[in-house]
């Protein structure tokens, strides 16, 4: 049994959290918090979940409380955005370095300064090398399903790493769409209870968490973190396949949209991938050979899959909604890496768009495709909709 609801992306995340019924949710209850935690705290107040809700004084403390809860053996979750994620930074590394399977919804929003509350990916892209798995969501439906998948992925014995489930600020988080919600019991049966390998509260098997490791062991711990990240690819596919049994949807590293026939391709993630689909449909109907490659799993990055899908294409545009100042933009850089060993490399063009919530129109994307079609490509970063 499933039902379709008119949900925002924030609603979708909190609905997933209701079904997950985590042991602990710690969150900073005011700005830059999102409606995710507002709605979830209502579930707590109404007794629809038996979560211990901890209202903390900052995001640094929110993540610290999640670290404590998760280390104790609890299933711990939180949500944040923008400056909130930035303030968590120190503890993000504690969570991943301690191999704690915390799941966090991130509503992607710009970082200060200048002060801005709107959508871009500067927050989570800034945290791409802190050893958190990152899954990006095109729409509210994906937010819901990715959040459920994330729990199972994070807690898998081969992985044991925290996961961020990202969605676009306002565009996804505050916009209402159709969201299909699956049966509570089926989701709960799929997830089961968290079975920690090691937990502070297990007195029969005492462990130390977060110890001092200097020149002697720190390096080994970091190497193991990378192995866990590499393992996460296989586990992501396995968990996705199992979830597929309930939802009927597929969970690959990427989504290929009209890619087989395409000569030129746009690569992007989150809600703009949806807008690109709409443009692909229109251009396809006029005989243009265009396609989309949507990145879903950004950490760990699916280099082989991306290379396999894009080699032999004529040209590829990469649309990043965040900057890497003085360097290649985050997604573009990964695409370039992925294709280094390809036999038939496509030409690549980097575009930055939508910083601080600047609108992206279908015409903008059409003109990107037209650049690729007419071979208007150069090694410089290009900016969509920015004033000179």
């Amino acid at each position, binding site marked *: 049994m499933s039902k379709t609801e*008119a949900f925002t992306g924030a609603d979708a995340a909190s609905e997933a959290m209701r079904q997950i019924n985590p042991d602990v949710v710690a969150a900073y209850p005011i700005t830059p918090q999102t409606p995710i935690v507002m709605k979830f705290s209502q579930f707590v107040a109404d007794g629809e979940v038996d979560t211990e809700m901890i209202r903390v004084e900052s995001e640094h403390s929110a993540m610290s409380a999640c670290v404590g809860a998760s280390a104790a053996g609890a299933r711990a979750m939180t949500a944040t955005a923008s400056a909130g994620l930035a303030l968590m930074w120190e503890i993000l590394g504690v969570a991943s370095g301690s191999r704690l399977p915390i799941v966090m919804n991130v509503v992607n929003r710009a970082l200060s300064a200048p002060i801005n509350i709107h959508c871009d990916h500067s927050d989570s892209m800034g945290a791409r090398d802190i050893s958190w798995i990152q899954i990006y969501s095109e729409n509210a439906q994906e937010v819901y399903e990715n959040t459920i998948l994330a729990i199972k992925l994070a807690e898998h014995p081969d992985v044991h790493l925290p996961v961020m489930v990202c969605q676009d600020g306002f565009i996804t988080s505050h916009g209402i769409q159709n969201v299909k919600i699956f049966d509570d019991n089926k989701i709960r049966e799929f997830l089961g209870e968290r079975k920690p390998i090691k937990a502070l509260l297990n007195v029969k098997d005492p462990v130390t968490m977060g110890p001092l490791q200097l020149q002697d062991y720190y390096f080994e711990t970091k190497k193991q973190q990378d192995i866990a990240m590499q393992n996460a690819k296989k586990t992501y596919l396995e968990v996705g396949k199992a979830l597929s049994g309930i939802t009927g949807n597929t969970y690959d590293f990427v989504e290929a949209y009209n890619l087989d026939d395409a000569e030129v391709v746009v690569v992007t993630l989150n809600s703009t991938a949806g807008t690109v689909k709409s443009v692909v449909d229109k251009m396809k109907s006029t005989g243009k050979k265009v396609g989309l490659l949507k990145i879903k799993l950004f950490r760990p990055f699916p280099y082989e899959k991306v290379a396999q899908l894009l080699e032999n294409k004529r040209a590829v545009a990469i649309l990043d909604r965040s900057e890497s100042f003085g360097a290649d933009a985050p997604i573009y850089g990964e695409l370039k890496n992925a294709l280094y060993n390809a036999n038939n490399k496509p030409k690549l063009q980097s575009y930055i768009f939508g910083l601080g919530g600047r609108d992206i*129109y279908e015409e903008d994307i059409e003109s990107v495709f037209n650049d690729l079609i007419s071979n208007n490509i150069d090694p410089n970063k290009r900016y969509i909709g920015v004033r000179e």
Partner: protein
Amino acid sequence: MIEIRIHGRGGQGAKTAANFLAMAALEQGKFVQSFPEYGPERAGAPMKAYTRISEEIINTYAPVVNPDFVLVIDPTFIGTIDVADGLKEKGILIVNTKETPDEVKKKTGFDGEVHCVDASGISIAATGINKPNVPMLGALIKVTNIVSVESIEHLIKKKFLEKLGEQKTQATIDAIQRAHDEVK
């Protein structure tokens, strides 16, 4: 796909109207989107909210540029901001005003189909307060048939019965029905 833009002022319920429209369409099995234009959020500042309704899945997240229908909740916008901006030639403009469609056409410069309804007057008569946003949906439904009156009424009952009680909920439904009947 049908795209609708609603002009209101912060606090007048343009976003609520856009959401209700989407929810009613979803209950009729349609694909929907609704979202406000988030600027600096201030009570009284002009703002816009949007609804998309489609038989097929809606992929795009681009802003609505060329709406099919425009709803104006605040009559003071007529002649002061370009409410018909981007409105399709065959689009429809519906305004909360005591003025006639001809007067609105003259002030907005929009030459297409224009309808007027005194949704503020209807709202005050029915509920005692000036909340023209939901009654305006009655006018929209009459002119465009985009969703059924029953689906909006059902939704109002679902959302308001517990919060407002039977009497006030019925007054809101009456206002929708009156705006539906009286739109010119």
